[in-house]
């Protein structure tokens, strides 16, 4: 299992389109993906879970991946969260 703290750079946070691209990308990995914000977990492969966690720009969250491709998953998903435009 890998955990990584990430500061969200997406201007609108994980809103609508970015949330959809995050989930689509997460679904491509075999590992379980979680987003943890203020101790609350969201399933990274669930569009409703990700959107409902209301992650905004500047939030510090923990990205958790657990599975055989966890390292790749973290690297790829971290990039999505840090995109500024």
């Amino acid at each position, binding site marked *: 299992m890998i955990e990584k703290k990430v500061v969200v750079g997406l201007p609108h946070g994980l809103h609508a389109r970015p949330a959809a691209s995050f989930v689509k990308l997460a679904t491509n990995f075999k590992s379980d993906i979680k987003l943890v914000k203020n101790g609350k977990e969201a399933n990274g492969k669930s*569009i*409703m879970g990700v959107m409902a966690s209301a992650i905004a720009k500047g939030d510090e969250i923990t990205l958790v991946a657990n599975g055989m491709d966890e390292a790749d998953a973290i690297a790829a998903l971290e990039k999505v969260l840090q995109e500024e435009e």
Partner: protein
Amino acid sequence: MSREIAGVKASAGIVIGAALLLHNSELEVQTVSVEDAEAEIRRFQEALEKAKVDLQEISERVEREMGSEHADIFRAHLMVLEDPELVDTVTGTIRQERVNAESALNNAAQGFISIFEQMDDEYMRERAADIRDVTRRVLSYLLGVEMGMSGQAKEEVILVAKDLTPSDTAQLDRRYVKGFVTDIGGRTSHSAIMARSMGIPAVVGTREITTAVQPGSKLIVDGHAGVVIVDPSEDEIAAYQAKQADYDLQKAEWAKLVDQKTISQDGHHVELAANIGSPQDLEEVISHGAEGVGLFRTEFLYMGREDFPTEEEQFQAYKQVLEKMGEKPVVIRTLDIGGDKHLPYLNLPEEMNPFLGFRAIRLCLDQQELFRTQLRALLRASVYGNLKIMFPMIATLEEFRQAKALLEEEKQALQKSGVDLSKPFEVGIMIEIPAAAMMADVFADEVDFFSIGTNDLIQYTLAADRMNERVSYLYQPYHPAVLRLIRQVIEAGHAKGKWVGMCGEMAGDPIAIPILLGMGLDEFSMSASSILPARQQIGGISREMATKEIPQILGMSTSRQVEDFVTNRFAHINS
């Protein structure tokens, strides 16, 4: 007896036909215990698969017929159906509680719906409706209830419903559905936007249409007036048929002009732009063939909320408009608020004379943080299109210089922090105060453009509040005093090589158009629906001939005289 029901005009046009009532009442879900949980899970998965196939088809069809943007919503619905949280919750509930799939799905969906409904952000609250819509689709398969209404419509109908969801509108069979009327919704509701892009008449927000109409009732839908006539008389039908025929002919003429430039009969090009209040208006702007946005009122960003919009929110809105318009010009007016337009969180005292009071640029120069935030958002958005920044209510040159200096300060600060501001943009003023119109030659040395805001210019010139019924007769757009000021501004701008536009109601007024064209106005900005008629009108006028009439018009004594002269001289404007 016929009955007239008023609503919100959502999409123009007239249609006469029979009502088809769409009952999208809540599907009734009962909780039943099941013996074989695995079989129930399979039933759920089958319904899920069918719904996915539906959505896949709908999104492909919508993309083909209406463009990728309209299909986004169905792709989002597909993701909801593929959401492991939803699917696992439902299968888990069926397995553990041995309940039927309908009830397990309904409960799981309700859980998500209530989370989204409680969120602060309006966009997120709307997502609750998406979850409800997509859940209904799966439920209807589980319950064996026909969901789409397209199967029902085998002849031309007018669809009558409480509300239309995105699924409903996308499934409309456009061969048969000739219009629609709903109980709820406003001009910007999903159903209204869809109707406009489908080009069928619609009236929404009637409150009572579903109770006033029987299946098969005859209806007239007048999307221009926002009126529905239930059980019309023969005379009413004949009158509306005539109107409909006229409108159809006219529309066919206008449709030919959508992708054309606006050229006068003698070959001079002017720009016809649209006034908008929010990025949502762009769809109409584009479908009506605007050559730009001549006035983007930014007030909407500040209204209907409890605190100032952030720089980021503003940046996103400006960027969206600039990107959608591509290389076409977009004039964004900085905040015009105060006086009669209140913001609860701004806490301004009531004024005796709000139109002569603390508003627009006066307020922005006083509350500089508010203004600087907007300027930064505009600057950052400038690289995404063809931006022109416009300051409203400028009375004196000092105000313009001060506003421009603030813009310059923010620009340098942003550049220092590495923000890309490489794209040049123009900075101009709105001319709506007679003092500025009189001094236009002086302003012309320092601004990049003028846009004449006639709504205020007229009321300041004749000192008449147009909202006050007792003096509103003095609100005279064709009064020679107003026309002389306008001519002066246009000439002062042109003398220094600056372009001059107009962004008041007058720019789209068929009586004013020949005069403005003759005076050499470069840009006419109006409501989107006026653009094609104006383009047609200008195509029939020789600018040189109109120019020759200007001295005579400016020498007239009354507004009435001007109006009569223009009507006679350019007779076709009343066609």
